[in-house]
């Protein structure tokens, strides 16, 4: 169960952000944008694992209260999931699975001819589907 999901575009501008608790949204925004540096490191940096071509980047960083995970598609779209640190039952595989579902949703919205890629995603159905993925009802 995630508390926040963000989709960031190639140019590092946010395309979509959703949190279960709207009050925490601003705080998450800041944390997520900071985590983008780590994403860049993991893909392009000197210390990157050689030949790791997996889309799932793993844990980006851990705060006192939250953990942040990243995932980058071949098309340079970045997905970020924020989970509550106290949720120790959540395993790596479950995070991977959530990312795959988010990727699937994104690939679907791309098929909508009235969505222009690069613009923020404002379709209600998309927001609902992401909420379901966050709460694990999918």
């Amino acid at each position, binding site marked *: 169960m995630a508390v926040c999901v963000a989709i960031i575009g190639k140019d590092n501008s946010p395309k979509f952000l959703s949190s279960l608790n709207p009050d925490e949204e601003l705080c998450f925004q800041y944390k997520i944008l900071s985590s983008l540096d780590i994403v860049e490191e993991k893909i392009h940096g000197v210390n990157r694992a050689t030949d790791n071509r*997996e889309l799932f980047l793993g844990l980006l960083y851990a705060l006192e209260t939250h953990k942040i995970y990243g995932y980058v598609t*071949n098309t340079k779209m970045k997905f970020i999931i924020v989970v509550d640190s106290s949720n120790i039952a959540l395993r790596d595989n479950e995070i991977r699975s959530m990312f795959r579902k988010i*990727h699937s949703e994104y690939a679907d919205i791309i098929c909508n001819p009235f969505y222009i890629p690069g613009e923020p995603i404002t379709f209600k159905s998309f927001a609902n589907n992401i909420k379901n993925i966050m709460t694990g009802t999918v």
Partner: protein
Amino acid sequence: MCDQSVFEIFHSELVNYVIQNNETQLKNTSKTHGEDLSNLEYIGFSTGFRIIERLTRELPRFRDELDTMKFICTDFWSAIYMKQIDNLRTNHQGIYVLQDNCFRYLSKLSNTKQYLDLSPRYVTFTCGLLRGSLANLGIRSIVTAEVQTMPSCKFHIQVQRN
């Protein structure tokens, strides 16, 4: 799932729509000096951009630009045109030439120099498709097509680096 012929016939009608629309909007209708096929290229661009998102969903990340180009020439071209690109050449400095000796949309037109002047209409969508796909993979480019003898076609990709 759709039969192949649907897309071929649809592609022809797409070309016809753009040409007719140009005529009704009184755009340049000269056949010899380059019709305005920019709308057709944009439709190709939009399609390529979106389809690559779906095609690359399950694939591992590409290593580099050449890796991406090889993917375009093999898996991508096979999936869409039922065959691979016959020849890929590059100067390793951002110029790539993809040669298809029997390009699908030209093979129905002719095997000779007849209708050569109409060939741009049938390759423009694909130029856009390539440009859109590469763009979504982070490679900005200019894509043009060269047709000397049908049905063979060379797609020239010039990568734009900042």
